[in-house]
């Protein structure tokens, strides 16, 4: 068991060492590949201490705030809507063509539309990110509601639960694994579209910083932003993995049984 952990650490360690040594030994010029140590030093001074002209800390907060607000708005819209659509076969069939048209649409093409309606401000960012991130939660919730074991609903009938009670005790818990796995996809999608729109609008946020750093040919800042966002994405994903393991244990067990 311990040895297996080591196996996983090894490739990452090798990459970090090579990354440090290549510029250190002058094999690759530092303006192309900065040392790992200088990247982490840059993250420390610029993001944590707020020094330097890139203000990575402040821009990082912009990005995170937008991502989380957009994600939250997407979840608030998608979960109830998904339950309504999924509960009725007719509603589902009537709305399906509309969903099928809007879902594959790459959200970036609608950036001008959101700019025209809202102007470039915080509500525009949040509305746009919510639009981009809403689909996985919505589709998953619809599927989750539709694929409830009929046995569970029969059970609710046998126990003579009323509608409200059977909703909270049966439908919602049975749908929750789908909702959580949709949210996991959505949160990372929200981060992706946030950085994308920040790069395109060039206003603030890490997406702006990274374009600015490229214009200044500042590789250290470029790598700092990339590392910061990679860690953020990893932590976001890890939170959901933990949540899935914790709250959805019964679901995973039931999946293995069938």
């Amino acid at each position, binding site marked *: 068991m311990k040895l297996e952990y080591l196996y996983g650490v090894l490739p990452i360690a090798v990459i970090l060492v090579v990354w440090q040594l290549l510029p250190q030994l002058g094999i690759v010029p530092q303006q192309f590949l900065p040392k790992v140590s200088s990247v982490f030093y840059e993250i420390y001074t610029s993001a944590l201490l707020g020094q330097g002209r890139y203000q990575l800390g402040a821009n990082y907060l912009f990005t995170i705030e937008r991502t989380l607000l957009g994600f939250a708005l997407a979840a608030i819209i998608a979960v109830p809507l998904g339950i309504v659509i999924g509960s009725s076969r007719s509603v589902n069939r009537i709305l399906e063509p509309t969903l099928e048209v809007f879902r*594959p649409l790459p959200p970036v*093409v609608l950036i001008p539309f959101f700019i025209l309606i809202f102007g470039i401000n915080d509500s525009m960012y949040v509305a746009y990110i919510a639009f981009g991130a809403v689909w996985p939660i919505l589709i998953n919730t619809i*599927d989750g509601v539709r694929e409830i074991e009929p046995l569970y609903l029969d059970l609710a009938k046998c126990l003579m639960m009323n509608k409200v009670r059977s909703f909270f005790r049966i439908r919602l818990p049975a749908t929750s694994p789908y909702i959580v796995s949709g949210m996991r996809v959505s949160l990372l999608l929200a*981060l992706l579209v946030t950085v994308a729109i920040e790069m*395109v609008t060039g206003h603030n946020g890490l997406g702006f910083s*990274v374009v600015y750093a490229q214009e200044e040919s500042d590789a250290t800042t470029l790598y700092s932003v990339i590392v910061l966002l990679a860690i953020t994405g*990893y932590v*976001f994903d890890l939170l959901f993995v933990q949540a899935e393991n914790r709250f959805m244990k019964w679901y995973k067990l039931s999946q293995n049984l069938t």
Partner: protein
Amino acid sequence: MRILTDYLFIVAGVGVLLSILLIWQIVSITNVLPSTIFPSAYSVVLSFFSQVENGSVILAVIYTLSRLFEGYLFAAAIGIVAGISIGLNRLVNRSLDPLVQFLRPMPSVVLIPLAILYFGLVDSVIILIVTYASLWPILINTIDGVRSIDPLVIETANQLRITGLKRLRKIILPAAAPFIVSGLRVSLGIAWIVAVTAEMIGGIVSNGVGVSIFYYLNSGNLAPMYGAIIAVAIFAYFLNRILLVTQYRLMPWVARSSRMLDHEA
């Protein structure tokens, strides 16, 4: 009777889409939103058809798609081959898993400026980043697909001495295929986002639908801008549809569970 209700539902479904256009038209002509920034649905549809007629919008989408597909097909080739090799070897899988899990969630558009720094403002930057971004869902799904094979099946294959190419064709690929196709669908969505974002950042390429959309926006020519957005919607819809139909046709037995696979990716 059943066929009749099926028809009714299709008509109602298309009706919802048309009523969105109708609401758009009403909002525009009543000036709820000023028609200067929100041209009427009618003028947008007219503009769309003339853009299709003179070929400008189709050409723009094709420029975008040619770069998108180059990257996407690279990613598919690398992802499927690497995924099968990693999935078959427990030790390799164990050691690479943390690295893969770390690289996968990173918002890949952030690599576009880095690629510009290295390679300059050239087409291949977009192809490279599309490859990188669409690699992960395909790779991870392929690994999962290979690892999902029932140990009993593997055992039987061993007993029957099914090895080499035959093992790949008869056992591994059929088991992994539904996972791979669902990875391909997730990747396609991401490839679109990356390819169009890269065009919109500006300066990398001078053609493609992302470039046209911003060109029309900046010149205040909004009807053709919406026309271009509609063109993307149509292409994105049909590409997604093609993969869906492939999934249903080739693997009808997974049609249901495959939707669950999408959620996992």
